[in-house]
Structure formats: structure tokens, C-alpha cells
């Protein structure tokens, strides 16, 4: 009986996954193959002709090759923010897990507050303008780092506790300075969480729509998600181009995910200390 129940449960799970994740994706792909007229019907019909290359070319060329600029901008923002996030979050997680002081409670509260308190857009813009960072890529990078730091810290902190303190001490005896201990010993051992962080944060930041919309105005500053607006207007929407655009900008996160998913190595610390 339990066997049958588990088979049924599995089948139900697969079916649900298919409906929720795969069908929309198939819909996107089909739409990207259609011409404008057919796509306006927004149905599940088979494309009448092969229009993918035309659509792709048009999407890329629209508004003076905005797509290319957007890809460059998004890549810069994503790579730099994720790098900073990994380094800073790992540092904070390391110090929080290792050094017990009376400030820990307050710091943990602030981290949680960072997760819970919704960002206030207008004051942030005001602050950015004051710092002359509004509408710049590095301003955007700082915003992404600040918004995502608490989550990354929480991921790291729990994991740092699994790295034996003896390793830090052995490194100190070997002559390592604090930064050596962190970059040569602790950070490499945090690789499994780092991978998780890279996957989660880079997909999130690359696909971020609202923050670039608020804090990064201007055509030269477009990010990939904002290019979606190119084909939507109040009265007419080119659905074939919109979905081609979606298809194009889905590819990089998908690649990140496929590449790093294999890198998550469990038990990196095996052999460090007597198990």
C-alpha cells in the first residue's frame, strides 16, 4: 500500500511540476517561433512558420542594440554584486560564528531586520542622489549587495560552525594573518555554500526587475529585465518579440544553474579532523 501511495505521490508531484514549470516554458518557446499576427492570439497553437531568427535579430537590434548594452550592464552588475556578496557575507558569517561578543545579538537582529524590513524606495533614491550614485552601475551594485547581504550571511553563518576551529588555530600557528586564515583556509572550505550563494544570488540579481527600474533609469543603463518594456505598450504589444526576449534573457541564469549545480560538493571537510 505504501508503495502504491508513494508512486501516486511521485506522479502527482511530477505532474504538478510539469504544469507549473514546464508548460509556461514551452509556451515561451512556441511564442518565440511565431510571427506577430499569430502570437497576438496568445494560444497554444503550433507556429505556422519558423520565425525565430527574425525575432531574435529584431529583438537584439531594437532601440539601437539596447539588448547588447543591457546584457553587458546586467553581467557587470551580477558578477560584481555576487563577488562582493560572497566575500562580505562569508566574512560576516565567519566572524559572527567564531567571535562571541555581547554585540552578536544586536548584529543578528540587524541582519534579520535587513531581511524583513521592506526597502523604502524614495528615501533610498534621495540618499543615492546625495552620494551622487543615483543612476550609476556602481550605485546599483551597492543596492544589490545591501539588499541581498542578510540572506547570504544567514547561509554562511550556519556553515562556518561546521569548520573546526582547530583549522584556524593551526593556520595561526603556521603564521597566517587574519586575512590569510580567511582567504586561504576558511573561504575555500565554504565552497559548497559559496556555490549555493552564487546560484541563488546571481539568478536573483540578473533577473531583478524592480530595483533597476527604480534606481537605474536611462537607456544607457538598461538591464536585461527592463528590455522587456521595449515590446509592451499601452495599446499594442509584440508578443512574439516579447517572448523571444524572455527566451534570450532566460539563457544565462539557466547556464549558471546548470554549471554550478554540479559543483556542489558535499563533505568538503571530510578528513580534516578525526571523523
Amino acid at each position, binding site marked *: 500500500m505504501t508503495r502504491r501511495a508513494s508512486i501516486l505521490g511521485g506522479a502527482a508531484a511530477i505532474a504538478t511540476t510539469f504544469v507549473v514549470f514546464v508548460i509556461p516554458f514551452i509556451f515561451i518557446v512556441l511564442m518565440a517561433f511565431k510571427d506577430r499576427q499569430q502570437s497576438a492570439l496568445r494560444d497554444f497553437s503550433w507556429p505556422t512558420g519558423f520565425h525565430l531568427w527574425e525575432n531574435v535579430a529584431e529583438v537584439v537590434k531594437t532601440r539601437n542594440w539596447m539588448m547588447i548594452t543591457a546584457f553587458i550592464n546586467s553581467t557587470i552588475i551580477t558578477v560584481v554584486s555576487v563577488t562582493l556578496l560572497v566575500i562580505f557575507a562569508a566574512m560576516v558569517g565567519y566572524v559572527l560564528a567564531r567571535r562571541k561578543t555581547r554585540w552578536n545579538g544586536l548584529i543578528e537582529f540587524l541582519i534579520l531586520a535587513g531581511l524583513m524590513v521592506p526597502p523604502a524606495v524614495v528615501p533610498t533614491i534621495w540618499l543615492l542622489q546625495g552620494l551622487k550614485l543615483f543612476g550609476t552601475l556602481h550605485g546599483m551594485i551597492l543596492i544589490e549587495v545591501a539588499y541581498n547581504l542578510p540572506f547570504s550571511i544567514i547561509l554562511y553563518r550556519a556553515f562556518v560552525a561546521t569548520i*573546526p576551529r*582547530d*583549522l584556524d*588555530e*593551526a*593556520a*595561526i*600557528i*603556521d*603564521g*597566517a594573518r587574519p586575512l*590569510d586564515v580567511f582567504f*586561504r*583556509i576558511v573561504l*575555500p*572550505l565554504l*565552497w559548497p555554500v559559496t556555490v549555493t550563494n552564487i546560484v541563488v544570488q546571481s539568478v536573483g540579481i540578473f533577473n531583478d526587475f524592480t530595483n533597476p527600474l527604480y534606481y537605474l533609469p536611462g537607456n544607457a543603463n538598461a538591464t536585461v529585465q527592463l528590455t522587456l518594456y521595449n515590446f509592451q505598450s499601452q495599446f499594442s504589444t509584440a508578443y512574439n518579440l516579447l517572448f523571444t526576449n524572455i527566451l534570450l534573457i532566460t539563457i544565462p541564469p539557466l547556464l549558471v544553474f546548470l554549471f554550478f549545480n554540479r559543483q556542489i560538493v558535499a563533505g*568538503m*571537510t*571530510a*578528513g*580534516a*579532523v*578525526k571523523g
Partner: protein
Amino acid sequence: MAGLELKQLLKSYGNVEVIKGIDLTIEHGEFVVFVGPSGCGKSTLLRMIAGLEDITGGELVIGDRVVNAVEPRDRGIAMVFQSYALYPHMTVYDNVGFGLKLARTPKDVRDQKIREAARILQMEHLLDRKPSQLSGGQRQRVAIGRAIVRKPEVFLFDEPLSNLDAALRVDMRMEISRLHNDLGATMIYVTHDQVEAMTLADKIVVLDGGVVQQVGAPIELYQRPANLFVAGFIGSPKMNFVEAGVDKVVGDSVTVSGPDVAGVPVAIPAGRLRPGDRLTLGVRPHDLVVAPSGTIVGRVGLVERLGNETIVNLELPSGASWLAVLEGDQILRRGDSLALDVDPGKALLFDKSGQAVN
């Protein structure tokens, strides 16, 4: 060349004092073992010497420098941890060479030193492996290699063998002893295993409650313990104790009696005791011999016949239980009465404060 000097060394966490003013001198090239029960502060003391714990008070001198405020890397020490603490993401080669790399030693010198250390420890074939691919003994070897390669003045060992199985422990013990001879460096070794302490040490430091109980050569500690704690801690099986009072003093000998013993003669220099003094008599299980007219009489409990010796659990009249290790194979029956005697030169007496009288 570096000896160590500990002057009134103190360590406290908040209001809790864990090391209560330790004075100790360690000569260059000495093998010193810190022993004591769990929580006696021996590991803390070692970590203070290593620089992993701050020193609350007192002075620590290594060589001729006061090193209280000196970073661990500049103290000329190397440490081997109980858990080995190998860097799991590096090969054995990189593990051993990590300290040299941090010190920016040129690559060829580094390579030469790593291979030299590997040769000393006979682990050249392991250099390309990761720690997870090594057995416990091999890991410990790598940890020692990491220490050797730094050419330290002082080696610190924090219970290095307690994670190894019994056979390997004996091997590694000999290895460490050989290393001490070959390198001629000062070694400080923490253990709770008294066999390790007795076999390795030039000098044993017995610690309890953050205080040095006694410092001395292993045999000295065994034969002439300074107090009840050392007497009970050193030696296996444990020393037997019983309450007793002085009957009479004749020259360099006294006779003591108590609820469980009647007229045991003990050699004591004249003038130290007077009739009526209350004391604790201590006798090692190995020093008891069967004698029909013996002064210690009890009922035989559990008997373990090992062939070469017989271990008897003796119940004394007051209900106290003593162990006696008797020579050869003795046929004893449970419940029988057994009389034992002790050589007056080997029985020990401790006064009310627990200090040895003889």
C-alpha cells in the same frame, strides 16, 4: 636554543580562574609532559604558551624574550593538535608547506624542506594525497611534519595520540621519542594518559585545578608523590588509601593503626610525627605482599588471575576496598580472609592537608 620560563602565569575567563599562578622552568631540549585530569587547565596552559589564549597575568619567557604580547608565528613554536587540524582542501605537500608559503620562502627552498620533513617521517609517498585519503596515523604524521618544517625552538603537542588506536599509539609514541632525540628541540606534551607521560617525559608536571601539584622526573613522582592528588593520579592501578593514626615513634620508624590496619610500620625520618597524629596511609597495589602475619587484613572479593600476577579486590573491615597486585599466580577464594604486608620503605603517609610526610 630555547628554554621556557613561566612566571606566575595566570588565566581567567571573567571571574573564573583556570590557571592560578604557575611557576615553571623548562630547560632547552627537555621533554616536558603536562598531565592531569580533564579540566585541570593543562590544555589551556599549552594554548597560552602557543599564543592561542591571552595571558591574563604573569610572564611567559621563551628563549630570552618575554612573549606575552608576541604573535604565535613569532614565538618560534609549532603545535600538533589532537584533531590533527589538517587543511582538507590541500594536499599533504601543501599542508606541510603552508607555513613556509606564508613566510614567502622561495619555492626551491620550500620544496627541499618539505621533502626533508617527509623523509624524516617516512611519508614521501603520501605527498600528493589529500587528508581525507589518509589513515589516522598518517594524518598525525602529516601534522607532525607540518610542525617540523617550521624548525621551531619549541614543539607543543596537545594530546596528539588520543585519537589513535592502541597499537598505533605505541608506534607513534616511539616515533615522537625518536624525533625528540633527533631534533633536540624542547617539547611540551599534554596528555591525560599516564603511560605516555611516564614513558616520554624527562620531566612531568602534574596539574590539578589550575595549580601545579608536583614537578619531577617520572619515577620520582611515582616513588615520592608530594601529595595525595599526585599519589592517586600517578600509577595504575591507583594507590590505596586509608585513614590511620600514629601509635608510636621509634627512631626512623613509626607504626600506624586505624579501623582497617593494625600496626603498619612506615619508615619516616625521626621527629616529623608524634603519637596521636591523624594521617592517611597510602600503599601502591604492587607493594602489597601476602604474609600470614600481615598487618592489613581483609576479605577477598573479586580475583583476576592474569598468570604473571593476580589482582585481588580486598574488602577491609570498614567496608573500604583495596586493590592488591600480587606476584605470580595466587589461588584465592572469594570470601576468604587474606593478610597482607607492606615494606616500611614503600608505604607513604600524608598529613591532614594532603601533603606527603615522608
